[in-house]
């Protein structure tokens, strides 16, 4: 049996007295695409942000590359592990003061020390991959939401990550833009990238995911293959939720 890429053990997260994540254990295998679904406020985003320690877990372990991330304080070691986990945010979070290609080149040059020429070459390849090679010199404010999110995906990919985390990547988009972003993500999944996606796009989850995790009330209520979760969920919480969204 291959060792899991990310191993989550009894993860808990409290904000003050509010316990958002109550006790979560799970594994992400290499090449797997996992979609996390569940009602709003169930802790999906918090869980995802714990994976690359944008939120520091209160208790539990997150083992990635043989290291428990939850134990690390902010510093070099954590930074080095973070760069192996790409993240895409709901609000894109492109750097507005840099144009598209500068956004993509920044981290490879400043973190990995890659030469500008090489970073530029990679960036253009990635832009071609997300279909935006002609937008390299434009500033984020002149792009549509869908285009911005595709740039954000390219920016994360530029660090050549082992896993990509998506935090509701299409929630802030106009409906007509959702498709192009999901298409990009699907291509990425088909290329073999390990992905953890928090999403409300049930059709996408059903089609692309290898495994669905259903979260509610701070617990991972159940997980399984999409066809099982979507057609025959076991927990009452999942039944109620799916009845509403499908």
């Amino acid at each position: 049996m291959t060792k899991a890429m990310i191993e989550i053990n009894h993860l808990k997260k409290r904000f003050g007295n509010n316990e958002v994540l109550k006790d979560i254990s799970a594994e992400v295998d290499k090449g797997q695409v996992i979609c996390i679904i569940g009602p709003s406020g169930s802790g999906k985003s918090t869980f995802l942000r714990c994976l690359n320690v944008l939120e520091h877990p209160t208790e539990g372990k997150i083992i990635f590359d043989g290291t428990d991330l939850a134990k690390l304080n902010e510093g070099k070691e954590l930074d080095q592990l973070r760069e192996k986990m790409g993240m895409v945010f709901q609000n894109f979070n492109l750097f507005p003061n840099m144009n598209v290609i500068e956004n993509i080149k920044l981290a490879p040059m400043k973190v990995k020390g890659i030469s500008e020429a090489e970073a530029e070459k990679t960036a253009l390849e990635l832009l071609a991959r997300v279909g935006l090679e002609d937008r390299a010199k434009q500033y984020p404010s002149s792009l549509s939401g869908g285009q911005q999110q595709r740039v954000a995906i390219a920016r994360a990919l530029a660090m050549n990550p082992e896993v990509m985390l998506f935090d509701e990547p299409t929630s802030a988009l106009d409906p007509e833009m959702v498709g192009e972003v999901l298409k990009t993500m699907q291509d990425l999944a088909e290329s073999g990238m390990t992905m953890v996606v928090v999403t409300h796009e049930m059709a996408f989850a059903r089609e692309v995911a290898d495994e669905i995790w259903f979260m509610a009330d701070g617990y991972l209520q159940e997980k399984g293959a999409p066809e099982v979760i979507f057609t025959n969920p076991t927990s009452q919480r999942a039944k109620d939720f799916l009845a509403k969204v499908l």
Partner: protein
Amino acid sequence: MKLPKKTMMAIMTSLLAFLTILLTVMPVKAADQVTNNSVMQRIKQKKELVVGTSADYPPLEFTASEAGQTKYVGVDIELAKDIAKDLNAKLVIKNMSFDSLLVALETGKVDMVISAMTPSPERKKSVDFSKIYYHPSGEFFLINKKDQAKYRKIADFKGQTLGAQTGSIQYELIQKQMKSSKVKGLSKINNLVLAVQSGKVAGVVVEELIAKAYAQNNHNLLAVQSDLKEAQAGNAVAIAKGQKDLVAAVNKTIARVQKEQLIEHKYLPAAAKYMKTAKKNNSMMKYAPYFVKGVGYTVEITIFSVLIGVILGTLFALMRLSKIKLVHWLAVAYIEFIRGTPQMVQILFVYFGVGYFVSNLSAVVAGIIAIGLNSGAYVAEDIRSGIGSIAKGQTEAARSLGLSQAKTYRYVIIPQALKNIWPALGNEFITLLKDSSLVSVIGVSELMYQTQLVQTSTYRGVLPLAIAMVIYFIMTFTLTRLLNYFEKRMKHND
């Protein structure tokens, strides 16, 4: 602003600690500075006699312009010259506002004060006096000519407000003998004269010669002999406590001056001559060099204070953002303390207070330090709010890409924050330029101070102020244009 209880406690504690240290160290240092007979030693050593005066009180002390140079003249200045001569020292005049004089004396900034000062019992508690060298001729009311039928004696001013120099004997006289009138104190005579002319006060109580000088130079003013009874007439030289030898030396000079009748035959005629020339030629063009000099100092103070302010501000902003609690609290305490105290008090505190530790701290340097320290707190807040205005998502995106905290700041946050900080910083610079006028209280020859000199020299109140306003406006307007230009250029870089 909401602060957690713990933080509040920390701020209070650090402030208390700061004040305790200050208060315990200061008296010791002060004792070092002015001990028994130490002033005389200092004069002999440096061959320099530093005399403090408030040069806005003709004919006793005032300024005159001679070939574009400011010259301190008047009876008291002449006396100071003779005292210096007898002590075999070079005379240095320090001009400051009347109410700062005794503090300057006690803190060793000046060796003696000769400024038409009356040895009142209150003053005798903190300083010693020589014998009386001059008996003023009596108190006069300086009123508007149109009121000449209305105000002749004390009873006429019932229910009215009278002006007098703050801390002066006239101020006390009004309080004691004109109980049915109110008193308004201003530190400069020229501002008092303005107050009469603009109807803010019904009249000003000043000494005869001054009243007459102003009445002569302003056709709408009139000097009226008052019926105020002076309890302790006469002016004396003020000297710090415990300087028996210096008091003796000054008394010896006064004795000589009185024997030779120098005041009547030499000092007063000389002073009258300067007062006459002032009347003859009051053209503002003649005083252009005064304003030029003032602008020079104002610009110098502004530039250096901005430098200090930006350096300190950056430092305190970073300290405030620091995760190390002590460092964070120190910055918070500093910023809150500076923003919670008046800048005027800070300037006086730096000049007189810090002057304990650094005895040769010049007024310009003290002013620059005080304004720079003050500006630092505001700049820190500008920078902090500029950084705070950058959405959290920017940091998260940068950190998720593996950028360290330092690199996140350097490449992502600061470049964006600068655009937000710049306009606030620009406002701060303009405020600073204007606030530099406050250092006139400690006698720095910046624009406001020079304007006051012109006012006293010309016996005219409004015109010099108008000129000063225009000059300040030209400076701030130019600065605003300059800042806007850079702001636009930043925007183009988007």
